[in-house]
């Protein structure tokens, strides 16, 4: 069957004009890949939940039900459907808090990775491409960023500017770009010696065009893999900053804050920390699946 297909493919009469990537086309590609589809469904579901939180949440996340503190989830003894996933030590409804927490967690997770990615890719491209003293200067900058503990750096910035979602994105972005810079630089170092880059140079293609058209598309796969993975660590990092009191400030809720609130009661009320943890896991899994699929779709060498 395959051989037949190949012969058909090579037939000169098969004159296929460029396949434009329409939205329909993208969905077709998505439909064909199971992981991609699962990832897409999870990510869009979480996004929709975040957007429509006020309509979906059964309670106000800040509402205190003093009569029902430390109530377990509904299937356990003492639980009820009023608080499907239980309540915390002051009687907040966990389900509602998780639904609302998706907003901040997603925003912080995604945007700080995007910010870190942009800085990292630009620095990595320039450093790897130009080499020489430019490379030395930028890489020593990277080294010095690595030498300062992330938490310490975050403490200083957040201390100076005051904690808010914006500063949190900034801090997480600025502390995480280093890994992308190193990754991209390494890739660029090997790709720029390829003949197609030298060919472009001998044609007279300008440096910035060379970087964008020849180098960037060829480093993007490893970048996508790393960045989707680090959405997870970023959400966790946000949680630990919140735990230190420098992250999201109450009454704003994020999965990280729910998680760290629940940590004190892990021995008695396990559901406090478990459910936001599961929410983080599922979301991150979805993003990783989606990223994997995206990497494959962007690479013409992988048969779709």
């Amino acid at each position, binding site marked *: 069957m395959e051989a037949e297909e190949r012969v058909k493919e090579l037939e*000169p*009469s*098969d*004159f*296929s*004009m*460029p*396949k434009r990537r329409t939205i329909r086309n993208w969905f077709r590609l998505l439909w064909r890949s199971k992981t991609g589809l699962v990832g897409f469904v999870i990510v869009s579901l979480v996004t929709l939940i975040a957007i429509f939180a006020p309509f979906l949440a059964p309670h106000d996340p800040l509402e205190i039900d003093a009569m029902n503190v430390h109530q377990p989830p509904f299937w356990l003894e003492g639980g009820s459907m009023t608080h499907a996933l239980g309540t915390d030590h002051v009687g907040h409804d966990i389900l509602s808090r998780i639904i609302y927490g998706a907003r901040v967690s997603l925003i912080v997770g995604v945007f700080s990775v995007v910010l870190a990615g942009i800085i990292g890719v630009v620095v990595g491209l320039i450093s790897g491409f130009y080499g020489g003293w430019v490379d030395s200067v930028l890489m020593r900058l990277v080294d010095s960023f690595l030498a300062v503990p992330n938490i310490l750096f975050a403490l200083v910035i957040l201390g100076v500017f005051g904690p808010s979602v914006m500063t949190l994105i900034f801090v997480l972005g600025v502390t995480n770009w280093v890994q992308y810079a190193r990754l991209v630089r390494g890739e660029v170092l090997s790709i720029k010696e*390829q*003949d*197609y880059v*030298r*060919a*472009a*140079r*001998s*044609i*007279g*293609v*300008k440096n910035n*065009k060379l970087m964008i*058209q*020849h180098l960037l*598309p*060829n480093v993007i796969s490893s970048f996508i893999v790393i960045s989707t993975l680090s959405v997870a660590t970023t959400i966790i990092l946000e949680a630990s900053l919140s735990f230190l009191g420098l992250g999201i400030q109450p009454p704003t809720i994020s999965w990280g804050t729910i998680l760290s609130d629940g940590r004190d009661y892990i021995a008695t009320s396990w559901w406090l920390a478990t459910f936001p943890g599961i929410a983080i896991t599922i979301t991150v899994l979805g993003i990783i699946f989606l990223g994997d699929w995206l990497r494959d779709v962007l*690479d*013409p*060498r992988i048969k779709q």
Partner: protein
Amino acid sequence: MSEQKRPLLEVNGLTKIFDVSTGLFKKDEKYVHAVNDVSFYVEEGETFGIVGESGCGKTTTGNLVVQLLEKTEGTIVFDGVNLDELSVKELREKRKEFQMVFQDPFSSLNPRKRVFDIIAEPLRTHLKISKKDLEERVFDLIKTVGLHRSYAYRYPHEFSGGQRQRIGIARAIALRPKLVVCDEPVSALDVSIQSQILNLLKQLQEEMNLTFIFIAHGLPAVRYISDRVAVMYLGKIVECASKEDLFNNPKHPYTEGLLSSIPIPDPRKRKLENQRILEGDIPNAMNLPSGCHFHPRCPYATELCKEEAPAYEEIAEGHSVACHYPLSDGKGLIKYA
């Protein structure tokens, strides 16, 4: 045509030294003389072959000519213009007149670009033409190099080595350059495909009045396509002559050795007493032999060869050689051409 026929390319005293010193503060200073005082010229419309063993500097010479590497010394005069005197911008503009075909057809095409965009890149870079004109020219080029136009929207990985090399050639001739440097364009291909590509190059040369510098380590390909041939050894040209002269009447012992390394298919025509098989390996380019670089492997070497480097001189019309004792005509050698 002007009365005074000047060569399209004139290279004088071209030298490239790579600094391969190791250690943080360069305690261990080492240099590789990849190309050492090389001079040659290329006439318009001819094919100038450069042959030599691996590591003799022929690829470096090609890269220096198309300005992919910066030379250490020497001058390159292209079409009457000294390339040193051009500004960065002028040089970029000039680049469309000399292009390169690369050795490895697998790494010379960007895996993420469609064939159309690969071939269109030089046109987009240098010309401001409408989308329609661009398409027309690209499809024209695809046809010229013997591919079907339906291939335009495929990616490089879908092609064989020979087809990829055709794409590389299409890219190189897209701007109708005057000079094309072919850096071992067939050595990565199957023998059956090699001749197709060589024929394509010959045909293009006729149609477009191209000038080629053809770099190779395989003598048969060079003999087939070249008009004049230079033999390089350890960064130097040791002999340069017309194809007939060089193959029938080599003056340098190294050329003689190279020629007798060509396998002869018919065993009855092999004459063992005529073969001069080169012994030993090519010396380390970081630690060059004294005098004539070839003397440790030369069967005719004398004391003089060890001490003094021979000058590169024209000893017969259009036949230059760097040897103290150039071989005399037809001295014990198999006839080739």
